[in-house]
Each structure stands twice: as structure tokens, then as C-alpha cells.
């Protein structure tokens, strides 16, 4: 083999060697229970109910009451949860027609009278609740999901805006499919949320929820 040919062969062999190798994905084992555990119907034991928005449902349509700067808080919460995913598993958009919404967000009105599972969150300055209309027997989630974020402090309270922002992100976490609370106060999905953004554990929990087959079937009105 001539000199130039040998050099070319060595270069190509070097290139081929460099062309091998794969990215190493992290092990996402740090997560909490996101599913809703309810008494089994019928019979003893429990049912573990899980949900995530299907790709075909995206973007999720969200109607938000124009009060207490809630549209901005909800828009921010959408961005935060969209950014939690690597493969665009969740996307949402604000809509102007509440009758066409998958999620309805109210600011300041407590919901009552629904046959629902309530997932409350509270802080000194504000409180939030997500109502899920779930028929455990038929494993159906009836839309819309209803969210309320209510101020509990005067409008000039310095902590109110922060509280509304993080509580909205928390409640939207329920609306995307995290149907339980984290036991860790460092997570946005802690019962009494204190941090302003989802933690790595929140993100990994959301990812797990979206890559596990849901047990709840969505029913639209």
C-alpha cells in the first residue's frame, strides 16, 4: 500500500472509530407517587388512577378568568410545564370560549357541588384547588378539569403575587396529570407549595406520568 493510501485508510479508520458511541441518558428514579389512590369500587383494596393528556388532545385548551392577573399566571404555568418535557409531551393554549375548554381556571371563586376529587393547596396569601370529576367505577375523567386560585391576603400584600404564581403552577401540575402531592417541600407539588418552580423530582414525576399508560379515560361534555 502506498503512503497516501495508507494515510487515507488510517484517517478513515479513525473517523469510523469516532463515529461510534452513544449518549448516556440519566436514570430518572427520583420521583413521587403521582397517581390518585382511591377506595376500590367495588370491593376491598384501592384503585390507582392515572392520567395524562394524549398527544391527540394537544394543545390542551385552557380558559382562564380575567381576574387577579390570572391569565398571565396561567400562561407562565403553561410555559413552565411545557418546559418540563423533552419531547413535547404536553402543550397547552389559552382559549376564549369556556364551553370549549379542557381546563377552566377561576380566580377567586371556590367551586362547590361537583362530584369531584379535590386537590387543595394553601399558603398564607392564597389558596388553590383542582377539582377532578372522576367516576371511579367507570374509570372516567369528565372534562373540564376545574382549577381555582383564590387570594387570601389584601391586594397590596407583598407575598400575594408570588403566592398566586406558584399556586397556579402547582394547580396546573394537577391539571396535567400529577394527581397527588409530593411529600417533599422542595417540590412545587408539595401540599403547601413553597418553591417557585418545579424541581428535578417534579419534572421526572411528570415525565413518568406521561410515559405510563393512563388508567382514566377522558370524557368530554
Amino acid at each position, binding site marked *: 500500500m502506498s503512503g497516501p493510501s495508507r494515510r*487515507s485508510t488510517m*484517517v*478513515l479508520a479513525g*473517523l469510523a472509530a*469516532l*463515529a*461510534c*458511541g*452513544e*449518549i*448516556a*441518558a*440519566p436514570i*430518572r428514579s427520583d420521583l413521587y407517587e403521582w397517581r390518585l389512590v382511591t377506595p376500590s369500587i367495588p370491593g376491598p383494596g384501592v384503585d390507582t388512577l392515572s392520567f395524562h393528556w394524549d*398527544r391527540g388532545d394537544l394543545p390542551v385548551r385552557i380558559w382562564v378568568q380575567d381576574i387577579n392577573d390570572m391569565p398571565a399566571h396561567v400562561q407562565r404555568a403553561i410555559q413552565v410545564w*411545557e*418546559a418540563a*418535557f*423533552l*419531547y*413535547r*409531551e404536553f402543550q397547552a393554549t389559552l382559549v376564549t370560549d369556556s364551553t370549549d375548554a379542557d381546563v377552566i381556571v377561576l380566580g377567586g371563586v371556590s367551586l362547590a357541588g361537583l362530584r369531584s376529587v379535590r386537590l387543595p393547596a394553601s399558603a398564607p396569601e392564597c389558596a388553590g384547588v383542582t377539582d377532578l370529576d372522576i367516576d371511579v367505577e367507570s374509570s372516567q375523567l369528565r372534562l373540564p378539569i376545574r382549577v381555582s386560585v383564590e387570594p387570601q391576603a389584601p391586594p397590596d400584600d407583598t407575598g400575594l403575587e408570588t403566592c398566586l404564581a406558584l399556586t397556579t403552577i402547582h394547580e396546573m401540575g394537577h391539571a396535567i396529570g400529577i394527581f397527588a402531592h409530593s411529600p417533599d417541600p422542595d417540590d412545587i407539588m408539595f401540599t403547601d407549595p413553597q418553591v417557585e418552580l418545579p424541581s428535578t423530582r417534579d419534572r421526572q414525576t411528570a*415525565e*413518568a406520568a*406521561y*410515559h*405510563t399508560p393512563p388508567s382514566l379515560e377522558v370524557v368530554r361534555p
Partner: protein
Amino acid sequence: MLTPVLLLAAGAGALHAQTDYYARVGAVGASTLVRDVLVTEILVRQSIAPMLAMGASLPLSPSSRVGLEATLASGGFDAEQEGSESDLGTLRTASLLLGLDGPIRGSLRWRLGLGGILYWPSEDAGIFLEGGPVRFLAGAGLDWRKPVMTSWDLMVSGRYDFHRFSTDELERRGFTQAQAVSRVSLSVGLARAIR
């Protein structure tokens, strides 16, 4: 005072006469960009994308030339999990290679190059949340030419290049190392004839 100007002009004219330049269109395909595991395996892949290539070269020795080649490609990319594909948007790439080329036999020439590739997603989201990366690129290829007009040759080119892919967002999330990505392209175009 006029002499340097005349010499420069003469040099520039000679340089222009020896400059080879070309443009081609074609298609490029790439191997898997990301391999992840979320309960089951997820593969992020680019679609076969239309490509535009442009380049120019100058003689380095009687048989070899040195040149720059730039390519632009734009196509879709998606995530596949358990046979189900999810559209992730549009992904453009731009590459620039500084290379050498020389004759093999007849109208066939080899080419080797080093340079970079820029990923330019339509949206800063998902794996590109922190933007598209620039990665080191190495490539090789073959060119075949056939005179078709007085001043122009038909040029058919095949290219192979590779780089190691990752993004700031993947690294932020704990992905380590990088994915070896191979690209293969086939293109056809016109090159200025140097006879």
C-alpha cells in the same frame, strides 16, 4: 506605485481563473440524534431533508485542492416510542467544512474535510430548550463531474460526515457523553469548468 496594483490585479485574475466553485441540491439523511429511556426506549430522529450545498476551492498542488463547502438542510424531526412517532417540529442544520480534494480516477475525486455543524430548531423547546448547538464535524466524500456546457460541469456528489451530538438542555438534565451522528447525502448540481 502602479506596479503592486497591477501585480495584485494579475494575481487576482489568475486566482479567479483557478477557482473552482459549485452549487448542488440534494437530500441528506442522519442517524439517531438522541437515545433515551423513559419507561421504554425513545429515539429522536431527523427526517430525510432537502439540502443545498455550495463550495469553492483553490489549487494546493498540481493534484490537490483546498476549499470550503457549506451546506444547508431543513427537515422535520420526531420522537419515536414503541412504534409511535411524535412530531417535534422543524430542524435546520448548517455545516461548513474546510477540506482537501484530489483525483482518484478519471472524473472521480475524493474529498476530506473538517469543520462544524449548527443546529437551528424552529422553536427553542424540548431538547433544544437552551438553543441549538454547534458541534465539530468531520466528513469525506466523492465527486464526479461530466462537462455539459462550455463553462459548466455536471457535478454529482456523495458525502458522509459525522459529529457527536448533545445539547445544553440534555446536559443540564444529566445526559452524559454524546450521540455519534452519521449523515449521508447525495446531491447533484453544476460546477464551474476548469479546463
